[in-house]
């Protein structure tokens, strides 16, 4: 049953528009224009169970700037629904005052000015303080990590995820699921899971490729507040397609909806009174899964890096989106009685690093983990006059810089940079430290290749990636964004089927249309193919920035978007 109170919370988006108050304090914060740690942590405890969700940290131990996307188009049933609502539309939908801390945390609007005012977000030492406060209120609160934890920074790359494993153990995580974790290679993942991780590594959809048998624990039962809570893990479904399958050759993934339905039934049969899905599917995939698989009370979504200040309700399932890079923690209180969830209360807690005090113990641990690499990470390579950010469906200034570096350093006509959604931002005037370059590039297949491709092949690649993003059926989407292109412009109609979305591909340096039969020199990085050769992308970018001294990115108008 959905209680009246729950209904009110979901209805808050509408009432907040008229200034009727604010669920989760968003409006009050906005009105007061002031922040205190107590305000950020304020929560009227409900029921008998508390979940704490953090996801897609991408190995960010320290506070960062992180600009949310300006463009995040939804197609099919997701068109115009969160998380495909951005900027001022987002502020309006959730009744958030422009210029407020919530506006800064959740949208790109006035990002640079607000970043200077409100500072960086995240930092696992601040997160630790929030966790402690919640545990003081509810000692058996359950901390769950949605994955993409062990990849994305210099220290995680060099320590093969060990820094993150140590810190997450210390934070008291009780279960996780996965995606980029597997890009450390299957041997390292096995070593961590068997020898270092203090909690289960769940994945109901991870199977042995040869025998099609489950390869990891699908779920874990927790007794909390006197009731049985099942936490089911769902790893990123398109692991061997979107990332190098040769790094974990014996594993198969997939959405596996029937398997999920069977596991939900299994945990219900085993006595689960509440079912929580700790998911790395991506928001739109989870929205479809929630509609098609009954019996899941809460889906803790991940992968697509969305931060949504209220739960999205699909039938009786609450979808929670907790952002990325340590910017937020979600607290979800459940009232579980008579074998079912009677009430859900949620707060998306923004981790303002200048407002929330660092927990000294975790701060010391983080510094110890970073110490072996501190000198290399801190070296200043250049400065930036421009805002450097990654998120957006078609381009971002970090990838503009990376594409410029590939064209300049590798003497290419055209550059390709993958549509990753991870990578912290830098504000104008900031030093670019080596650590910052790695925050946008650190991963285990960084080779910057240089090869020849025909115009026809380039078109094929763009069409393929576009369909992974804009296929109207979420189960055919892989998450991520459009591959970033340097040196070439194009027009995209996201409403068309695969093969006819991309037109007017143009070589920017000559203004000529791309000839399908001609070969072009293309440089890119992060190929999923084994044996790709080239220098690591961070060396290419570092060399380019050293040559420039100060980075300045021209506005990118090379992609024309048609959206229905």
């Amino acid at each position, binding site marked *: 049953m959905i209680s009246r109170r729950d209904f009110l919370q979901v209805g808050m988006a509408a009432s907040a528009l008229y200034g009727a108050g604010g669920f989760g304090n968003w409006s009050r914060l906005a009105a007061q224009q002031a922040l205190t740690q107590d305000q950020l942590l304020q929560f009227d405890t409900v029921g008998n169970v508390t979940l704490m969700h953090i996801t897609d940290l991408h190995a960010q131990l320290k506070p960062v700037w992180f600009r949310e996307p300006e463009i995040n188009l939804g197609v099919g049933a997701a068109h115009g629904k969160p998380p495909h609502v951005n900027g001022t539309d987002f502020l309006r939908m959730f009744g958030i005052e422009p210029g407020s801390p919530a506006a800064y945390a959740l949208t790109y609007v006035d990002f640079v000015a607000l970043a200077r005012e409100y500072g960086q977000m995240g930092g696992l030492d601040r997160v630790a303080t929030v966790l402690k406060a919640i545990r003081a209120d509810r000692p058996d609160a359950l901390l769950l990590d949605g994955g993409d934890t062990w990849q994305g920074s210099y220290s995680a790359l060099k320590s093969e995820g060990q820094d993150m494993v140590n810190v997450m153990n210390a934070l008291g995580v009780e279960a996780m699921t996965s995606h980029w974790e597997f890009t450390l290679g299957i041997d390292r993942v096995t070593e961590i899971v068997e020898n270092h991780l203090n909690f289960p590594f769940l994945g109901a959809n991870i199977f042995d*490729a040869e025998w*099609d048998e489950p390869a990891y624990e699908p779920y874990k039962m927790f007794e909390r507040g006197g009731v049985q809570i099942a936490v089911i893990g769902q790893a*990123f479904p*398109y692991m*061997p*397609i*979107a*990332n190098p*399958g040769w790094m974990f050759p014996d594993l*198969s*993934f*997939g*959405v596996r909806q*029937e398997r999920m339905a069977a596991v939900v039934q299994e945990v219900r049969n085993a006595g689960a009174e509440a079912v929580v899905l700790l998911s790395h599917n991506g928001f739109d995939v989870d929205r479809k899964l929630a509609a098609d698989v009954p019996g899941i009370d809460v889906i803790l979504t991940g992968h697509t890096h969305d931060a949504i200040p209220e739960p999205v309700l699909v039938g009786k399932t609450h979808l929670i989106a907790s952002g990325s890079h340590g910017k937020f923690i979600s607290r979800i209180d459940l009232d579980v009685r008579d074998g079912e969830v009677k009430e859900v209360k949620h707060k998306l807690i923004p981790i303002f690093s200048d407002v929330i005090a660092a927990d000294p113990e975790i701060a010391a641990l983080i510094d110890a983990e970073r110490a072996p690499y501190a000198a290399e990470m801190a070296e200043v390579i250049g400065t930036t006059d421009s805002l450097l950010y990654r998120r957006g469906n078609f381009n971002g200034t970090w990838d503009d810089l990376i594409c410029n570096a590939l064209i300049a350093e590798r003497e290419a006509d055209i550059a390709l940079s*993958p*549509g*990753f*959604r*991870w990578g912290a931002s830098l504000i104008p005037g900031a030093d670019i430290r080596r650590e910052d370059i790695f925050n946008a590039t650190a991963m285990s297949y960084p080779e910057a*290749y*240089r*090869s*020849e*491709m025909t115009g*026809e*092949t380039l078109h*094929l*690649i763009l*069409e*393929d*990636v576009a*369909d*992974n993003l804009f*296929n109207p*059926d979420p*189960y*055919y989407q*892989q*998450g*991520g*964004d459009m*591959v970033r292109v340097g040196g070439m412009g194009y027009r995209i109609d996201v409403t068309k089927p*695969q*093969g006819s979305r991309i037109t007017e591909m143009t070589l920017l340096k000559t203004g000529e249309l791309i000839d399908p039969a001609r070969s072009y020199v293309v440089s890119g990085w*992060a*190929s*999923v*193919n*084994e*044996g*790709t*050769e*080239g220098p690591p992308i961070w060396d290419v970018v570092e060399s380019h920035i050293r040559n420039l001294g100060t980075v300045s990115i021209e506005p990118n108008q090379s992609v024309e978007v048609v959206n229905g």
Partner: protein
Amino acid sequence: MKLTRRDALALGLGATAASFLPARAFAAADEAIAEFTGGATPGEGGLTLTAPEIAENGNTVPIAVDAPGAESIAIFAAGNPTPKVATINFGPLAGSQSAATRIRLSGTQDVIAIAKMADGSFVQASALVKVTIGGCGG
């Protein structure tokens, strides 16, 4: 770097995906299906076809069929040069009427399963399996 052979193969899969869908391939599939059904129009229900939404490897795509009470199940890959993949016949003593195998798909296409039931009727199920270059999930 030159494109490796594997690169070329991966890209080649995409190429066939784009060029194979047109009518000629479907005509071949229709013909093969008509041969199995004798021209009867199959109904729906009673047949479960399990296939991945996106193939992890187009050269070996795991699929499974299950049709309680069927006499035989035929599997077709509508976009392959030779659409007919397999026909599985179940004897009267068969414990279940299900099978699992791996098939090769030349590109993104519908996989179609048709079961012939004991009363001579036919039921059909299909699934779109995408074969993709991949590489940009984030």
